[in-house]
């Protein structure tokens, strides 16, 4: 693809028709490209725009159409939504989400790295079967494992705590990440690790000082994915957490939605906006690493 240049990269315009034609083609193609980008981008972004707009609408206006500009903007939704119907403000729920996400993300990163390291760098009996199990776990609809799992956590006495949310992840329960990291590791050369071993590092030191830094980009994407998924996860906290003071935002967001009663949409939309914001910010900030991160992992499929 030789035409990755913007028309601004200088072509000395000669009087030749060919050059002019080429310039015109370049212009057309980048116009088309931008038009496409903006068009599709608008489709992608419209819901977000609408959501933000609607969060400033009054309740009755929300359902009057799909336009996004509020007629009489109000921040009532935010003010009331923040208060919530509980003794706690929404800030508390953000804090809870944070409390769930942080250990979970850290646990995921650590355990999945270890496990991926084991699969990618060591040989041991039953390796293939065990790796197969990583994928198999992805395939069973979790609706049917929910009750047995719940009973398990009940017997462990972990109900109404964050443990059921933390521990399985901290034990590399998220097969997707293991899978991703294994692929990534397989594409990394082993030389640095061998150099480290010659340098006197044991396998753990090699993992910590050499492999982890090189895994960096992939780990960033693991953390990002886990962050976003945990932020959005509704059913997990719903089932395991009973105390309102431990609710994360995903739960709090639906706290007052009773389909048999009237409820205030603009508050919910306002809080939805707040809930999405961290993920948006984080994604935008980490976008570069994110794409790099999957790059090596995705390459080998």
């Amino acid at each position, binding site marked *: 693809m030789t035409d990755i240049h913007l028309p601004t990269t200088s072509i000395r315009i000669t009087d030749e028709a060919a050059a002019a034609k080429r310039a015109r083609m370049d212009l057309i193609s980048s116009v088309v490209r931008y038009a496409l980008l903006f068009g599709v981008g608008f489709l992608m972004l419209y819901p977000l725009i609408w959501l933000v707009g609607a969060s400033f609408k009054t309740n009755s206006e929300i359902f009057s159409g799909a336009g996004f500009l509020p007629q009489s903007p109000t921040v009532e939704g935010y003010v009331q939504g923040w208060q919530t119907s509980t003794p706690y403000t929404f800030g508390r729920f953000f804090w809870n989400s944070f409390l769930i996400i942080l250990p979970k993300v850290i646990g995921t990163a650590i355990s999945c790295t270890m496990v991926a390291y084991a699969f990618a760098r060591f040989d041991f009996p039953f390796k293939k079967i065990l790796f197969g199990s990583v994928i198999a776990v992805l395939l069973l609809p979790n609706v049917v494992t929910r009750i047995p799992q719940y009973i398990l956590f009940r017997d462990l006495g972990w109900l109404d705590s964050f443990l059921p949310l933390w521990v399985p992840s901290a034990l590399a329960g998220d097969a997707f990440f293991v899978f991703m990291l294994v692929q990534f590791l397989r594409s990394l050369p082993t030389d640095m690790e061998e150099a480290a*071993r*010659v340098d*006197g590092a044991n396998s753990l030191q090699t993992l910590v000082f050499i492999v982890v830094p090189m895994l960096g980009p992939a780990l960033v994407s693991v953390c990002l994915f886990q962050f976003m998924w945990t932020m959005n996860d509704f059913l997990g906290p719903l089932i395991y957490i009973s105390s309102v003071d431990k609710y994360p935002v995903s739960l709090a967001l639906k706290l007052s939605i009773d389909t048999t009663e009237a409820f205030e949409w603009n508050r919910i939309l306002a809080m939805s906006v707040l809930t999405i914001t961290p993920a948006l910010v984080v994604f935008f900030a980490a976008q570069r690493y994110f794409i790099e991160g999957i790059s090596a992992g995705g390459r080998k499929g």
Partner: protein
Amino acid sequence: MAQVQLKNLEKTYNNTNKVVHGLNLDVHDGEFMVLVGPSGCAKSTTLRMIAGLEEITAGDIIIGGQRVNDLSPSKRQIAMVFQNYALYPHMKVRGNLSFGLRIAGRPKAEIAAAVDNVAAILEIEPLLDRLPKQLSGGQAQRVALGRALIKNPGVFLFDEPLSNLDAKLRASMRVRITDLHRQLKADGSSPTVVYVTHDQTEAMTMGDRICVMQAGHIMQVATPKELYNAPANLFVAGFIGTPEMNLIDGAMEGGEFVMGGQRLALGGELHGRLSNQPNQAVLGIRPQQFSLVSEGPALRAKLVNAEFMGHEVYMHTDCEGHRLISVVGAAEFEARAESDVVRLRPDPKTIHIFDKSDGRNVSLHGGSSIAA
């Protein structure tokens, strides 16, 4: 004391793929030993077994008198320089150099001193605060060298450390490494070096001795001069020397070597040297050992191509369907008869005759050298 001994060393990959077939090799203390051979001949595998990066299937490795088969790499008193340097990409040069010492928990001051010392030797002080990706190939090479050096190991292992450099840099790093080895020896630390390469120029210029390998077997272990002048077999003969030795299939008939329609009378001197007179033989002549003559016993060949190399010319000629290469001085080449057919007379003193059946060099009586 860090000699390295390999005893009946074997390696089988995946229980089926035997790639090292019982190597026996003694590398003396302080010696610079080069392992050379074509790609895939198991040089790296051997080196990595010495390093402890690859399991030993059978046999023993003894370093400094101690059997190390079951020791981890870090306990073997070795340091290794990798082909692609294997610098830790996330650490600065300083961090790369000091990693081993930090792992070992040495005091800070000692580490700093060691880094400075090594950096000074390799002239990489200005680079200490750069990341590997900010280094050129040659610089990265020196850092990799420094990382080995700083451990002050008994044995240095190199796996094609120069193959990623361009020709000019390769030449200068070559000299640098041998200089360094000499200097360390002079300082009394007598480090043993096992150096893997597939480039025979490196092998010839760097090694105290060279071990030529093929397909997991050792073909010959000797000094560069011996290898060059007295290759033990066809393989070594063909492998060592630039351009390659000319190897011509033919037959011995009486005192003459017969190839196609031409006959080459071999001097009586050569006859004396032959340990046996094989029927099917291969004649080996180095390109440098031809002279352009206008008469007398010589091979007639057609000039196909001439490569101008400054003071010399590589003449590619066709002799009875064999490609013969000869190296002649530029002046000599210019002065040759205009004709496309040249007469090449080999120097009978340095001709080799190989038994075609087993490749042995039969012109070395009893293995003694035919040193020039």
